[in-house]
């Protein structure tokens, strides 16, 4: 990498296997402040698994994670949050039967001096954040289950940015959204980027993310095919990486690159 700054996140030689299947095999990725890195690959390429290791949902078998150049000990989602890593999961991972405010603060509830839940304060803050993200959102009292896909997505995103995340992981953030909401998420990503937050965007659809990302990292069969700056490569070349594992000239090949004779 030409960048001499310390990466915000560096995952080095990370591997994990489930029952003999190498879901992630010796993968390395990194992310700098204010940068958007798109993690691309087919379904089952290991993108989500790799990122779940970073967010604490899975424990890696080997390899290391550096945050700001220092080894980070991430064993569960709570640890990850301590490092300012917030994740928006593909499955949205919202608690269906509680309302938006409860979801935003789940695990980090505001409390009154008596130790009880400060629902009113949480709802007020939720109204503020949701008002910024999705001004049309009004269903604060209803369980999240009753909301539309886009509204649930707003809740998941609001939860991730509420606590001043430094590293944001978005797993298929626009999968459940219509065109207008997708554009909103795009705007949001640009805004967060300006604030110096590092963002991992995970997608199996290159069109969703190519314009937003500064760099792409491509995975195939659990291995990293290669990394490239989006300005150095074309969409077709990246597609070649995703489908064939063929690394274009200006990209940096990884362990999963197709062996060329």
């Amino acid at each position, binding site marked *: 990498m030409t960048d001499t700054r310390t990466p915000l996140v560096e995952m080095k030689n990370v591997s994990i296997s489930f029952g003999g299947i190498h879901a992630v095999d010796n993968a390395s990725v990194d992310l700098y402040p204010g940068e958007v890195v798109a993690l691309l690959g087919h379904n089952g390429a290991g993108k989500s698994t790799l990122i779940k290791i970073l*967010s604490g*949902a899975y424990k890696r078998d080997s390899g290391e994670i550096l945050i700001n150049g220092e080894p980070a000990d991430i064993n569960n989602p*709570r640890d990850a*949050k301590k490092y300012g890593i917030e994740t928006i999961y593909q499955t949205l991972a919202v*608690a*269906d*039967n*509680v309302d938006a405010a409860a979801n935003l603060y*789940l695990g980090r509830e505001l409390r009154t001096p008596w130790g009880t*839940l400060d629902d009113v304060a949480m709802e007020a803050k939720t109204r503020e954040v949701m008002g910024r993200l999705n001004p049309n959102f009004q269903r604060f009292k209803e369980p999240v289950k009753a909301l539309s896909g886009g509204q649930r997505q707003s809740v998941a995103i609001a939860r991730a940015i509420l606590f001043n995340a430094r590293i944001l992981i978005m797993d298929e953030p626009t999968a459940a959204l219509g065109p207008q909401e997708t554009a909103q998420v795009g705007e949001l990503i640009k805004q967060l980027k300006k604030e110096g937050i590092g963002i991992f965007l995970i997608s199996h659809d290159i069109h969703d993310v190519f314009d937003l990302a500064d760099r792409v990292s491509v995975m195939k069969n659990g291995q990293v095919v290669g990394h490239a700056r989006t300005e150095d490569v074309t969409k077709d070349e990246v597609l070649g990486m995703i489908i064939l594992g063929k690394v274009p000239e200006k990209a940096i090949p990884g362990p999963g690159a197709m062996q060329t004779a």
Partner: protein
Amino acid sequence: MADITNTTHANRARSASENPVKRFFRATEIDTRLLGMVGAMLIIWIGFNILSGGLFLTPRNLWNLSVQTASVAVMATGMVLVIVTRNIDLSVGSILGFVGMIMGVLQAELLPQLLGFNHPATWIVTLLAGLLLGAGIGALHGAIIAFLNVPSFIVTLGGLLVWRGATWFVTSGRTVAPMDATFRLMGGGTEGSIGATASWIVGVVACIAIVATIVNSRKQRQRFGFPLRPMWAEYFLTAVGCALVLGAIAVVNSYPWPVAIARRYADANGIAWPEGGLFIPHGIAIPVLIAIVVGIVMTFISTRLRFGRYVFALGGNPEAAELAGIKTRWVTVKIFALMGMLCAIAAAISTARLNAATNAQGELDELYTIAAAVIGGTSLAGGMGTIAGAMLGALVMQSLQSGMVLVGIDTPFQRIVVGMVLVVAVWLDTVYRARAK
């Protein structure tokens, strides 16, 4: 600010198009499901009253009903949290039996040797030991479920057999009696009731609490500019709440002590026996008071504390709760420990009421407790349920049973009816929920 005005407009537009009934429920924010249960209960009450020739809706029967409900109602509050997290506890009846037996042995056989007979501290030592034991057993079940990943159905099915066996083992099947005099007050009866004056005081305090809650909630909403209930709805809720409380107090205060006991009391206190007999009201029975306090505390825990929030989040989506950083395993352990503690309270009520600890105490209670929670709207699919609903469910179950006894239906038919009612109630609930969606 623009958003807020928009909402008010939208709300107004919505309420204008609604019929008056819907508007009433929206304004008062009454849970229609709970109201339906109250309606069902009233139908049961009035039905039995007619069938029994006016025996059901008497102060005496209603007072007895409240005492009989207390033990299962206490356990049902905990069962709500268990079922909300997609677990089940089949062992509550056996835990009740075992803890009751240990408390019985403690106060009838061990503590008198240590402290002397009828020592004033006997009851509290016994009760604390019981609570600790119950919490310990529950925590053990919870730990096996959470950390060893054994399904709760199996763990508590095992518990059902283990603790029933242990109950039997402790005294080789012998019934332990009598209980300590102070301990016995927890079971109700003429002694175990707080009398008219104290009951009115409780009622007035409850009314003040209702007013304070409503005023406080309005203030909080105002502070953050949330939509408010219309004033008439606030007054209506306050009036209904207070009327219910004071009405209930009036009922328990119009059930006098039996003549024989009143006469003995008069003799003992040198009161001349009047012509028409001495009218000494029972007032609220202590076990009922315990159950109400348990209900309030459990409601507080489940709605106002972080723990309660986690319970419901966990029940709705266990994976999301885990990813949000909740220590889901510990929550499970705590839920079962709490359940065990509630079994101990129920054990105290039931042994005190019987004035004995037997090895069959609490048999089938697990099923009544689960039924109460489920009739009270706790969803077996997890994530939904209220404490008040479960307690009301317990009251409905007990009303059915007492009513059938009054009407003179044979025991086999009683069980058949209760079983069918359970199935029908859950079916109706399913229909209601499907329509509500």
